[in-house]
Structures are given as structure tokens and as C-alpha cells.
């Protein structure tokens, strides 16, 4: 194990504590900045999409991974972001203002959902968010004067401070800057009181309350922050898609977001990023599978949701900490080599404790 010799309290507060982390993050940032020089437009666009999904993943991660509030309908916020941004842009609202308004709208809607969520028992919330997403999808389809209904809505060109950014690399840098801000900001949140209160509510509402955390307000905040960040991703996604239709933001999209955070690793910002990488690579793997598998299976419709589902099951059963957990183990393995033992990460046995009050 890499021992950290902390000599000042600042060491506990710093953004990146270990020297290895600094080097790794530096290398990644360098690569991301230089990517347009090295990659073809197709791959660059994919990388941009990955960044957008990383933002959306962080949005959901804050709510589900850190605050323990399951949302089965987060694609709704993605949709709210995409539609509201496109509609505003189409009415000649400048990019930055449009993003700001979009974030505020989504944040507000999130807080309203959060208000009722704060009084709901766990799975009531899951169902309520699912129903909310189905409703929002219906609204996108029915409110034709604003959204174009099922015929779809063309997204205006990306224009920042009056400069049209039509090239792939220009759009990529917009995504990169936004992703950078969100990753940094979300990490900040979790080394400060608000983020810790989120975690406290996730792990034990009871003791959070006894320590002065206003649990209801924390849930409202978590929903607000989560919805705002996810809507930002939605706005950026709109520019990637260039054309919006209601069914883009359906139940399968919500599942994809959940898949991301579960596979990436619940309860870590890095996990959301890993998850985004995973879902970006997945379609490539699926198209590869389609070629390899016998056509009777490979060409059948429904292969994608089947794989989504199976991967989620496998991860939850065998690696609940996701790719992030794997990563920790791998790092631990190298840092302690050759002293790694399997027992270092054995899960404790547990049994169901009822949450019903008797």
C-alpha cells in the first residue's frame, strides 16, 4: 500500500492527494486536450459523446450513488435539458444564457420531484420517477407546438458567443470544458459539507438526523443538483444528435444511465466516468458480437437490452463496486505486490434487517 505521509490538514482537503493520482490525471487531461490532433472526426465525435454521457452519469451518480435515491427515469431530465436548450436556441437565446436557463428549469423540476421524494419510501420513489419519465416522454410527444411531437425537432447549430462551432473538434472542446467543470465541481461537493450530508443520508438517515442533517432538504438538494447536471448533459447531447425525438429519452435510455453507474461503480465520481467509457465501447462490442454469433442469435432484435440486462446482473452479483472497485483492487494489487491476498476484499455476510417500524 502506498502510505501517505500527511503532514498538514490541507492534505486531507486537497483535490488530488496522491502523487500518482496527479500524474495519472495529468496524463489523461493531456491526452484529452491533444485528442483532436490524433483522432479522426468519427472517433472524436464518439469521444465527445462519451464526455456528455460522463456528465449525465455524474448527474445520476450524485442522486443514486451518493444519496441513495434511485431514479428509474433520469432520461427525463436528459430530455428536459435537450428540448429546453434546443427550443431556447431556436428562439435566438445565446448559448450560455440558454444553458443557464435550462439548468435552472431542470434543477427546479428536480427539486419539486425531490420535495415529494423526500417523504417517500425507497421504491415508491423508483416507481414515481419511472412514471414521471413516461409522462415527460408523453409530453414531448403531445406538445407539438413546442417540441414538434413525434415528427421531431431540429437542433440549432452550436453557437457560442456569436461564433458558430460547426466542426467536430470545436464541439468536442465545448464538451471537454463542460465535462471538466462538472467532474471538478462534483468532486468538490464531496469534500465539503453538502456532499458529506448526501452520503450520510444514503448510509443512515437516522444518524444523519441525529447529527443535525435536514434529511428532507438534503434530498431536495440532491435531486436539484442531479437534475441540473443531467440536463446540462442533455443540452450538449442535443448538439450531438442534431435532431430530437421523444423516444430517444425513453425507458431504455434511463436504463442505460443506470447501467453506466452500476457498472462504473456506485458511489464514486470516477465510477460514472468509467461507466460512460463502458457504454461507449459497448455498441462496438455488440456489433462485433453480431458478426461472431450465429445469425439465428446475433441478428435477432433485442440483443442490446438483453446484454444491458445481463451485464447489470453480472456486475451487481459479482462486482457490486463496479469497474471502479476492480480498479481499486488492481491498484492495491500492484501497490502491495507480492502480498495481495484474496481475503483483502472479502465481503461480510449479512442478513436482511427490516426497515419496517414495529
Amino acid at each position, binding site marked *: 500500500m502506498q502510505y*501517505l505521509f500527511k503532514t498538514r*490538514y*490541507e492534505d*486531507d*482537503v486537497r*483535490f488530488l492527494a496522491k502523487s500518482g493520482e496527479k500524474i495519472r490525471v495529468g496524463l489523461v487531461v493531456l491526452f484529452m486536450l491533444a485528442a483532436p490532433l490524433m483522432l479522426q472526426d468519427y472517433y472524436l465525435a464518439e469521444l465527445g459523446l462519451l464526455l456528455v454521457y460522463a456528465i449525465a452519469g455524474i448527474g445520476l451518480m450524485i442522486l443514486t450513488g451518493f444519496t441513495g435515491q434511485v431514479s428509474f427515469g433520469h432520461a427525463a431530465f436528459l430530455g428536459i435539458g435537450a428540448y429546453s436548450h434546443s427550443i431556447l436556441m431556436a428562439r435566438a437565446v445565446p448559448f450560455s444564457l440558454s444553458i443557464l436557463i435550462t439548468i435552472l428549469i431542470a434543477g427546479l423540476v428536480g427539486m419539486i420531484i425531490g420535495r415529494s421524494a423526500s417523504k417517500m419510501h425507497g421504491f415508491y420513489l423508483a416507481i414515481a420517477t419511472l412514471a414521471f419519465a413516461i409522462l415527460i416522454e408523453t409530453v414531448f410527444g403531445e406538445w407539438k407546438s413546442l417540441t414538434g411531437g413525434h415528427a421531431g425537432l431540429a437542433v440549432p447549430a452550436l453557437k457560442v458567443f456569436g461564433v458558430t462551432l460547426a466542426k467536430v473538434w470545436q464541439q468536442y472542446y465545448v464538451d471537454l470544458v463542460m465535462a471538466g467543470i462538472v467532474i471538478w*465541481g*462534483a468532486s*468538490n*461537493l464531496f*469534500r*465539503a*459539507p*453538502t*456532499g*458529506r*450530508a448526501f*452520503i*450520510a443520508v*444514503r*448510509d*443512515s438517515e*437516522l*444518524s*444523519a*438526523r*441525529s*447529527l*443535525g*442533517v*435536514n*434529511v428532507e432538504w438534503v434530498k431536495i*438538494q440532491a435531486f436539484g*443538483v442531479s437534475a441540473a447536471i443531467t440536463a446540462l448533459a442533455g443540452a450538449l447531447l442535443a448538439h450531438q444528435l442534431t435532431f430530437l425525438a421523444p423516444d430517444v429519452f425513453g425507458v431504455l435510455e434511463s436504463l442505460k444511465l443506470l447501467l453506466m453507474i452500476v457498472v462504473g461503480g456506485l*458511489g464514486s465520481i470516477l465510477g460514472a466516468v468509467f461507466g460512460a467509457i463502458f457504454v461507449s465501447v459497448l455498441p462496438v462490442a455488440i456489433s462485433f458480437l453480431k458478426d461472431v454469433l450465429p445469425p439465428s442469435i446475433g441478428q435477432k432484435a433485442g440483443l442490446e437490452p438483453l446484454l444491458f440486462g445481463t451485464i447489470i446482473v453480472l456486475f451487481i452479483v459479482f462486482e457490486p463496486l463496479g469497474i471502479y472497485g476492480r480498479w481499486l483492487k488492481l491498484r492495491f494489487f500492484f501497490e502491495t505486490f507480492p502480498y495481495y491476498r484474496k481475503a483483502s476484499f472479502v465481503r*461480510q455476510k449479512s442478513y436482511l434487517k427490516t426497515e419496517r417500524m*414495529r
Partner: protein
Amino acid sequence: MSTPQMLSVRNLSIEFGGVHAVDDVSFDVQPGEVFAIIGPNGAGKSTIFNLISRFYEPTAGSIFYGEHDLLELPAHRIVRMGIGRTFQNIELFEQATVLQNLLVGRHRHMRSNPFREFLFLPGVKKDELVHRRKVEDVIDLLEIARYRDQRISDLPYGARKNVELARALCAEPTLLLLDEPASGLNTEETDDVSFWLEDIKHDLGVTIVMVEHDMNLVARVADRVLAINNGKVIAIGTPDEIRDNVEVQHAYLGAAA
């Protein structure tokens, strides 16, 4: 009595589906004392704590802390009055580190504003450092420095008990409710607890109310003892008086004793 009461509980009652879990209980706690509540399993000891913490709504009675009527406050405001607590079945934030747990303990003294923290403005860092220092004092007091960066789920039972006590102390309470601080601990660990309780009482000037089964510990640290059974008060007095009380013996050993 002329001394000011710190906590005064009057005619407190609560019913769960017709069962009187706490039935017309009254007692006072004076500043600076260690007040123990004893009784057989299911006597209603923890329920009294949960009533003071405002987790349950009493069916009758009142709870005053100094001049403040606690029944007017929501649960999360109780610690702001200066009342900290621990739980019988350790309620820590399992997936967080010891340090994070203790910092949540400081929540009462913290400002939280997501916008400031998202940008990590200089003020946020300054506050964090102040709280970090306070937390370290508690870590020193309870000797849990070696667990500082470990996750709770990796800690042994005894350490968890200490961390929970530490977390309650981080809130800098004036009144501390301890729900079975020594349950599940071995003799050595229990000795540690009794020394700490003395320290907390004398050095930090914290008043302690504790629920405890270990009569030796109670006799060692408690100034006064309240014995309850079936939700009712059966005796109140010094540890020696309680030990010799016939009704208390009946409650524990049954009518045959």
C-alpha cells in the same frame, strides 16, 4: 430543588399499537452528572432516547431542555440545542471513512451551500481546515488515529463503537445520550469506556445520560440511576440504592427472587 435542571422529562408516554412502551415517565438530569437508565430488555430505555431525539412523537408528556420545549423541534434541530447521541445498534455511515463520519459529526457547526462548494471557493477550504482540526482533537481523545482513513465497513466492532462515540463528540454536545456504550465490548474495552466517560464528564464538561446493562460500569461512573420496567419508573437514586432496591431485583430476576 434549587439547582437548574438541564433536561426535564415530565409524564412522558408513548403507545405502539396499544402497547405502552413508555408510560408516564418523569425524571430530571442535572448539569454535569452522569445519569444512567437501566431496566430489563424491552423496558423502554431506547424508546426514551428516541423520544428525546424526536424520532418518535409522544402520546403525552413534555421534554424540556433548559427553557426549550424539545417537542416543538424537528429531529435534526435537536443536536443544535447541544444534545448528541449514539445508537444501540451502531448507526455509522458504513461506506464512508472514519474521517468523513466524524466530519458529518461537525455538521451542526457547518455552513452548507452547494454553489460555494461546487466551486470550492477559498472560504470553503478555510472552514474545512477548521473542522478538520476540531475532529483531530476528538481522534486524539479516543485514540482512533490509526483508523482515520479506513472505511467503517472494514472496522472491527469495538472500533466502530469508539468511532460512533467520537462522532457524537464532534458535535460538541453539552448533553450526550449514550445507548449502551459498553454492549458487546470485552472487559478491557469496557474499562476504556469508563475512563473516557470520566474524561468527557470532567474535561469536556459534558452531561451524560446513558442506557446500560453492565451494572459494574453503571456503578463506577453513574451519579444517579433510573430503573424502569414495562415502560414505568420503578426507582430512582444512587447506584447503591438501586442495587439494594427490592423492586429492581424483582424486575430483573422475576417475582420469585
